[in-house]
């Protein structure tokens, strides 16, 4: 992983920023340059809701490289309060506690590290909301 490649996504991953089409109003995550609904090129940064509910979920038991030490881990498909969907690891809960419809919120966490001398990557994971 090169430093610029990681750096250029920081704002979007750390602050949950996507895009909103200025023409038709459609919202997207991740960010994009052309609206896939109306083909407009007028998109602006859009701040996602940080809370939502679990639509579907799974447990990853055979992970890809650089995720081995976290396995098994839960990953959810989450519908945010603004209607956008996002895929994210689910943390601070046991697999047996996970239920479809459960309220979750974004939290800032370590994602992976590239060996002992490479970049340590951070970003969003989602955890249960305590009301």
């Amino acid at each position, binding site marked *: 992983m090169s430093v610029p490649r990681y750096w250029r*996504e920081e704002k979007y991953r750390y602050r949950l920023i996507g895009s909103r089409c200025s023409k038709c109003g459609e919202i*997207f*995550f*991740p960010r994009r340059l052309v609206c*896939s609904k109306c083909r407009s090129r007028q998109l602006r940064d859009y701040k996602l809701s940080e809370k939502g509910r679990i*639509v*579907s*979920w*799974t*447990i*990853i*038991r*055979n*992970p*890809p*490289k650089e*995720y*081995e030490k*976290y396995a098994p*881990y839960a*990953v*959810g*498909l989450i519908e945010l309060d603004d209607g*956008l*969907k*996002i*895929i*994210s*690891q689910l943390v601070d809960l046991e*697999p047996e506690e996970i239920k*479809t419809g459960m309220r979750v919120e974004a939290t800032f966490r370590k*994602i*992976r590290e590239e060996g002992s001398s490479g970049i340590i990557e951070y*970003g969003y994971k989602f955890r249960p909301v305590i009301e």
Partner: protein
Amino acid sequence: MRRVAVAGIGLTPISEHWDKSLVDLAVESSCRAIDDSGSLNFDTLYVANVGSAFIQRQQNLGSMISDALGIKGINSLSIEASSASGGFAFNEAVRAVASGVSDSVLVIGVEKMSDALPEEVASTLAMSEDQEYIAYTGITNFGLNALIHRFYMECYGVTASDIAMFAVRCHEHAEGCNHAQYPFKISVDRVLTSPMESDPIHALECSGIGDGAAAVILKPFEGKDREVEVLATATSTDIFHLTQRRDITTLNAVCSAAEKAFRTAGISRKEVDLLELHDDSTIMGVLSLEDLGFAEKGKGSTLVVSGVTSRTGELPTNTFGGLKARGNPIGATGIYQISELVMQLRGEAGKCQIENARVGLAENLGGVGSSCSVAILRRL
């Protein structure tokens, strides 16, 4: 446009070929296809492959493999469209011959997966998804299928056992198949008690890791004895991020590729005698039945459970075992599917032969349904 025929096919068994390299496998399948067609000369060679850049650190397969076959001075390159690479390469080859640009095209699908460690295979498969926002979360290809699988069960009230039957039927069909990786039966209980791969998907609902190569030769249709005509091929894409799709249980790329292919072929779904579908895990086979237009939404597994998709049913599906039991050497899978249709339509399918096979359809998926190819073949 010219009519196009499959003039020859060649397969290697799918296995962990520890003693054979990627090029060895490609050459072995090609030589079989050349011998089958009796044709030695090609003006174009397409290589369908997904993992060589990552697993073998090898690129430029077009030149490498054409030279390995002793062929010089031709148009030769690799084609990549995730696990639909085979289907997409076949589509390009058909277009080249149909247009009159090419007179003889060799298409090789090859994948050498056993050169990688299991976590490297998982990473290779996850390369079909957005590295910055999907693979980045640590989700795998089977993990994405699992999100659909769970949502589908809850949405349509379908049971785990109904969906698992897709794998059971595949294994029934693979028995007696010489090129299948897992040519034996398994029970639904065995599937449902196997360890979880990615909940709610069990290990025995997933295609495994295997090496293999398949080759087909395409030529203008002449009406010779063993020729099988390519009635139509079509490809399509869907919204790349699963998260951005309105309904995650519908594979829009499958719907639109099927619509295009049936329109070109000028036939109805009722005229199709057999299917080769892309079941990288059971749920994708079920969704394929629905989105190709053979079952209503939520009813795909009903066809499987009731026996419609069995060898003696009305619509035999995955007649050599599909991805689950025949195997899924990623970039080669689409070419195995085409070769299997040809074997059935020629009446050369041995113990896997179905009766009265005249029209067959193959569907090859890439990513979590973001790319799809459909081919419809007919015997004379």
